């Protein structure tokens, strides 16, 4: 399995305070790696370390099999990125910015600018200067700039920030397409767990500068507990029925109305038993614990998040 990015004991401190501590992360070629963590955990700092904007206090970064040094420039040509929020030359137009980008990257393909703008759905913007763009438009342009040279590694810091729901879906499909069709490796950080859940292959969780866990989504899904979410009028009665009549003990009563049932039981048996015993069922849902549950339990399992 070849790794496109590997960090070893990556550490960064500012004035004695370690903002990134001993991070060992690895991203396989061709996968989509979701970077999760609370605000201030160090995700953006790590991304800046990877793109050589800041230098590590300790530790190494290896990209494309080569160590990253202050004077490594070639690797940068194979990376496309958005760090924090995309910055542009405001007095130029979108096209002007993209042309400039291609020139600096050494990428010469006349059609690629139109193609990239098309892919992020940024139209009707021919002569508008970037300073007159809305947040969503700037975000889309940032994504366009990152992907325009079809780099081998995409580093995206909250790429769907500021996008409308249609845009979010479009960009999600775009990332899936880039990964599947072009084999582009994507490192994406986001607070929107539902989105990450849908596209990531591997998850890395960062808290207070430390990489708490690096695990594949498949593993998370496997260990996902399926449960039935039951909303009734009287949970005491329902709980009594469940343990005495149905012999279902692995349950959690959340409050006066909500119960989660982790034992396997058919919904038919459940509803029958409850109805016979005069328990009003408001709703009954089959659910599986989401990435959100996994993420929150991971954070609270360790330190309290910042």
């Amino acid at each position, binding site marked *: 399995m070849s790794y496109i990015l590997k960090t070893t004991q990556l550490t960064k401190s500012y004035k004695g305070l370690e903002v990134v501590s001993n991070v060992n992360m690895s991203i396989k070629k061709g996968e989509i790696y979701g970077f999760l963590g609370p605000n201030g955990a160090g995700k953006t700092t790590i991304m800046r370390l990877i793109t*050589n904007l800041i230098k590590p206090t300790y530790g190494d970064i290896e990209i494309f099999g080569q160590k990253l040094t202050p004077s490594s420039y070639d690797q940068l040509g194979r990376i496309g*990125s958005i*760090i924090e929020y995309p910055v542009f030359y*405001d007095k130029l137009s979108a096209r002007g910015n993209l042309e400039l980008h291609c020139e600096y990257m*050494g990428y010469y393909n006349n059609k690629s600018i139109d193609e990239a703008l098309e892919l992020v759905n940024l139209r009707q913007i021919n002569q508008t200067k970037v300073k007159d763009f809305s947040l969503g438009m700037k975000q889309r342009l940032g994504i366009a700039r990152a992907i325009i040279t079809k780099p081998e590694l995409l580093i995206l810091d909250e790429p769907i920030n500021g996008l409308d729901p249609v845009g979010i879906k479009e960009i999600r499909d775009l990332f899936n397409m880039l990964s599947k069709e072009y084999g582009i490796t994507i490192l994406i950080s986001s607070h929107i767990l539902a989105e990450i859940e849908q596209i990531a292959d591997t998850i890395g969780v960062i808290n207070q500068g430390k990489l708490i866990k690096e695990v594949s989504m498949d593993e998370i899904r496997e260990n996902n507990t399926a449960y039935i979410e039951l909303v009734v009028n009287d949970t005491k009665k329902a709980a009594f029925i469940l343990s005495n009549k149905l012999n279902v003990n692995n349950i959690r009563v959340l409050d006066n109305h909500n119960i989660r049932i982790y034992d396997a039981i058919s919904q038919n048996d459940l509803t029958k038993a409850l109805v016979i015993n005069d328990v009003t069922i408001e709703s009954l849902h089959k659910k599986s614990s989401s990435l959100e549950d996994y993420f929150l339990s991971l954070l609270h399992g360790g330190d309290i998040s910042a």
Partner: protein
Amino acid sequence: MLKLTRLELKKNGIGGNIGGAFIAIFIILTLLTVVNFEEPLLSYKDIFSLTNVITTVTFIIFASVLLSKLIIDEFKSKTITVLFMYPVNRKKVLIAKLIIVVAFTFIFSLLAKIIIISGFSFINQYTHFIQEELTFEMIRNQFFIGIVNSLTAGCISLIPLYFGMRKYSTPATIVSAIIISSILNSQFGTEFTLSSIIYIPLALSALGVLIGFISIRNIETKDIV
């Protein structure tokens, strides 16, 4: 390097600065003529010295505007982070910017002197402000002095970079340029300026180049946030 310089020029719309430079030259020439209507200067020596002083001050200030546009603004608006994520040597990028500033100052400072003096002598043929004859020798001497003057102006124009980079401030850059060039070139009578002591502009030129070096020196290892 040539490609980098070309990209910098394209990126920043230098055309405006060039236009402004020509307008400034025209204004200086006009002022010079008008002043002579009021109270004629006595000799070509006065004209030369006045021209040198005014063009030097003007174009050091112009240079600081360019420095702001090319360097300070990029750091302030963080577009420098975009620039530094490209597969191009950071030092070369900054050197390209500095070359543009120094070259602009040198070229326009020299060009201004040429245009103003030839323009004035042309006008003088009709208005006869100055009775003196303009000899070839005078022109030749003045030309050499003009070149040296423009070269030192080019190097001195980098000094405001130090002041601007401290807080990424455009006003700091321009104000420091105004102060430095004024002190250097203020005249007592029409004879003496600090510039006449040749060592002073030379030392300051060296300082300017040194400041250029310092700005570039650590750029590869420095954190850019």
